[in-house]
């Protein structure tokens, strides 16, 4: 009979709202996820998705305003890892239209930026903005977990 594995099922981080700190969040959340049977290739997806969500929070939700914070909440459920990234809501961030394709960008039809949300939606099992009691934008994404023998909350 295998020994049950007891692990923490929640983690919260608060980061300075400055570009570059998304890497600090990435490494912390990746270390947390490593303990939760996220497959290695999905771990890379998680790291990229988290960075993109944090960048959106810093650049859009907090409008690159210094002194603000970005909050990250991770929660493990039986079948998935859920991550919420909350900014302080300097501006409401929700995409107004479909992102431009690379061909449209090369044709000069819009900014070369704006690939983040598309990447996030493709990398995560679930992703999107959700209503929140917090004043800022809350973006939630999820990764399904592999089964883990002996796991106990």
């Amino acid at each position, binding site marked *: 009979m295998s020994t049950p594995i007891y692990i923490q099922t929640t983690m919260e981080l608060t980061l300075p709202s400055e570009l570059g700190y*998304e890497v600090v969040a990435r490494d912390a959340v990746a270390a947390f996820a490593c303990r939760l049977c996220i497959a290695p290739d999905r771990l*890379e*997806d998680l790291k990229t998705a988290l960075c993109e969500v944090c960048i959106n929070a810093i650049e859009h939700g907090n409008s690159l305003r210094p002194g603000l914070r970005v909050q990250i909440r991770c929660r493990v459920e039986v079948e998935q890892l859920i991550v919420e990234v909350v900014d302080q809501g300097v501006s409401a961030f929700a995409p107004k239209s479909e992102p431009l*394709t690379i061909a449209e960008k*090369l044709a000069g039809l819009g900014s070369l930026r704006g690939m983040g949300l*598309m*990447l996030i939606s493709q990398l995560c099992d679930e992703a999107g903005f959700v209503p929140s009691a917090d004043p800022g934008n809350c973006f939630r994404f999820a990764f399904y977990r592999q089964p883990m023998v002996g796991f106990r909350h």
Partner: protein
Amino acid sequence: MLEDELTVSTRERDDVAIIDLFGDVTTFAEEKINSAYREVTNKGARFVLLNFRQNDYINSAGIAILIGIVTEVNRNNQKLAVSGLSQHFQKIFRMVGLAQYAEIYQDEDEALVGFKR
């Protein structure tokens, strides 16, 4: 801001201009990458290889810089390829469509052979 270190250098091998990118490709990389591209273009490069090395982090801002390079490559009638990307970032490049405009090779040697085909 936490500026990640990126080292960019250029060299030539078999008539291919190689731009080595060591480190993270983010918004902070723009001037270094564009400067290296201008340098090889001013020297008359027809074939340009972006050789990624130890790139733990490439984000959407970095990808936007690379799309800008594709724009210039098309304008200057050059041919662009990339090498050295991890499997994950090869997947990312395909997702955003960069693979349509720059052939992806596992490493530098494979890319140099590919340019000659």
